[in-house]
């Protein structure tokens, strides 16, 4: 039997082949993270500068000035490292929202935000490569600790930005809707809501909400809802009108409905409304006069 001695060239003996007693204790994930956080903090100035330079090269954040980019970069860098340290994304989520609130009005796009976070991830990863390049095993372990955390961060920031954007868009849409259905304050404590055209249930609901908020903001005691411009109303929308009148009353305001056509009056009766209980006046002018009387504006001369 041939006795073979198996030896491998010294340089490529992996650490693993040493006996267990000789192996240094493996660092825990926590220790690794602590070590890399320490490294990132130590090299903060350098790495941040490198990152900002890469942002410029990629022509991201063009809408912001250099000072602003530097400021935000500092905050993002510190938040990034803090998340790596604590493992908690709560603070980062809050920061991401805050950042988004500030930069969205400046016209910063989603691809830019995702872009800069990924650039930071790369800058830091390369720095780790450089530091641990002589210890391949350790580099692997460090990256194993770093990568999931880094990806989570990128995800959190991107999602935070997108959610904030969606919120802003919804707000803007709401504002546009409100502009197209104005509640007018004509006199103190008197509101007029002219309704024109076709109303669908959704618009009707919007109108009601706007009116109620208007009553509260303007402290209105009388509201004149003019439906002269409404051609026809189905039972659902007619019902909304009734609900608007009832809800306004709960806020302490009296509602006068003007411009009721015979057809609409019929619809209201059909759904069971007692028109005798509803305050109706022929036209808008008459309605305003009635409102002024209710508010005590007209002085009765004896």
């Amino acid at each position, binding site marked *: 039997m041939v006795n073979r001695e198996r030896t491998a060239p010294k340089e490529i003996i992996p650490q693993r082949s040493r006996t267990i007693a000789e192996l240094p204790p493996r660092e825990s994930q926590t220790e690794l993270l602590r070590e890399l956080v320490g490294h990132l903090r130590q090299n903060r100035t350098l790495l941040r500068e490198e990152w900002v330079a890469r942002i410029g090269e990629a022509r991201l954040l063009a809408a912001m000035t250099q000072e602003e980019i530097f400021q935000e970069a500092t905050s993002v860098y510190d938040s990034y490292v803090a998340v790596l340290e604590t493992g908690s994304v709560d603070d980062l989520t809050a920061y991401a929202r805050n950042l988004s609130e500030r930069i969205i009005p400046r016209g910063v796009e989603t691809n830019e935000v995702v872009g800069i976070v990924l650039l930071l991830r790369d800058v830091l990863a390369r720095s780790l490569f450089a530091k641990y390049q002589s210890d391949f095993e350790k580099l692997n372990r460090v990256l194993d600790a770093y990568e999931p955390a880094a990806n989570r961060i990128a995800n959190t920031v991107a999602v935070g930005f997108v959610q904030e954007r969606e919120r802003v868009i919804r707000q803007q849409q709401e504002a546009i809707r409100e502009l197209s259905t104005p509640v007018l304050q004509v006199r103190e404590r008197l509101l007029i809501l002219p309704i024109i055209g076709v109303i669908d249930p959704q618009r009707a609901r919007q109108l*009601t*909400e706007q009116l*109620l*908020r208007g*009553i*509260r903001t303007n*402290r209105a*005691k009388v509201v004149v809802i003019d439906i002269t411009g409404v051609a026809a109303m189905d039972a659902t929308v007619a019902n909304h009108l009734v*609900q608007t009148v*009832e*809800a*306004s*009353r*709960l*806020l*302490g*305001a009296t509602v006068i409905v003007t411009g009721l056509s015979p057809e609409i009056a019929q619809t209201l009766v059909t759904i069971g409304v007692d028109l005798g209980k509803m305050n109706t006046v022929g036209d808008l002018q008459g309605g305003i006069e009635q409102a002024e009387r209710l508010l005590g504006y007209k002085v009765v001369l004896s």
Partner: protein
Amino acid sequence: MQVPILKQGHVLIATIQAALSDADLLELRSALVHQVVRYRSEGVIVDVTAMDVMDSFASRTLLEISHMIRLRGADTVIVGIQPDVAFAMVQLGLTLEDIPTALDLEEGLAYLQHRSKTIN
């Protein structure tokens, strides 16, 4: 949890907090009636500004409060119903029937003052 009731001249003011239990509302009902009798109040204001939801029970209890207080010769005004709450209420068909309502405490007091002037 007790609802605070303040006395201001001939008026009692009860300020409801959010998240009131049924028992608290019923307690308020009897407390108000007792105090109206005790102080011979002419009016009661129930401030529901902090109520984030008005459901059928709350609505019914407010109606009962109003009726019981009327039996003692006093008026009740509900103030501070929020726009969203008012909207939800009318969807549920809760209109507080004929109980007077006002926008806020200031308006409620003005209403009661006007009432007492008209009556007296």
